[in-house]
């Protein structure tokens, strides 16, 4: 349950974006969450609602999508989507492997309300 710490960093950056755009209120925040990230999205939403209260981000929608994990086999270099925690290569069966993508946690975009 480290989501509060993560969402605190998200809110800080979102408010920076708002501040550099005349303090406009925030409509939507979009996150890209890699499949290997250990986060519970509902906890992120809960934390966002709590930490954005009283700020330009209050009431904004927190949106996210999951980016798939892709692993590179260290033996035969095949890049594959892992089907279990053990990352067995579908070509040679070797386990383990290098993360190509799927461990990222990115604040992708901030949608601001148009000026009234």
């Amino acid at each position: 349950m480290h989501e509060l710490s993560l969402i605190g960093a998200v809110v800080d950056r979102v408010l920076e974006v708002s501040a550099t755009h005349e303090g406009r209120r925030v409509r939507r925040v979009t996150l890209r969450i890699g499949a290997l990230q250990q986060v519970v999205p509902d906890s992120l939403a809960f934390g966002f609602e709590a930490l954005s209260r009283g700020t330009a981000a209050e009431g904004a929608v927190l949106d996210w999508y999951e980016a798939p994990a892709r692993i590179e086999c260290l033996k035969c270099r095949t890049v594959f989507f892992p089907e279990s925690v053990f990352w067995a290569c579908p070509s040679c069966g070797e386990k383990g492997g290098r993360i190509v993508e799927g461990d990222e946690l990115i604040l992708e975009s901030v949608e601001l309300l148009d000026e009234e």
Partner: protein
Amino acid sequence: MKVDVIHKVMKMNDEVAGSVRRRLEECGMAAINLISGPGSGKTSLIESAARAANGCLRLGVIEGDPDTALDAERIARCEVPVVQINTGGGCHLEANLVDRALDRLPLAELDLLIIENVGNLVCPVEFDLGESRRVAVVSTAEGHDKPAKYPKLFRTADLVVLNKIDLLPHVDFDVDAFLAYVNDLRPGVTVLQTSCRTGAGIGAWMAWLKDTARNGKVA
């Protein structure tokens, strides 16, 4: 209007972790991040190291717990410089906490910093603390399936310690199954089997710590 940001959420922590690494490097030190569930024996492993160090490895310790200074008091009794961080309910340490704790340690007089993370197999894994190497500790009282259930810790570990092996006759812990899980997740990783009560494996633990102090410094 939509503003593309593409901001790494962990950027601030990673920057501070980088700063911690540089500070340690400037002092000629290495650091380990000790991660496990509560009660697996992290503090006991540090005590064992402190007793065995005998002046030939100068340790400094940062203790992380939600509350109390109980662990720091244990380490202080071993005459090792120690700082206690209380997270007040926080489930993991972050780089900024470690950075502030470094201010309270005599870094110029130390060879190796041991950071004992908050007891938790999940959240600490996500936060780079500026360590040179990461150690995952599991005790025989916790079940041999822990690597499969908490794979990310084991995938990112530079060393795995199986502690409390003196309890093996009394628990249903399948060591071979545990080792197989670990090797599947992190092929080739060193696994030490230790008991702080009997002293089993502590020699190998010390050798690894000394190797880390000599060679674990991040370039």
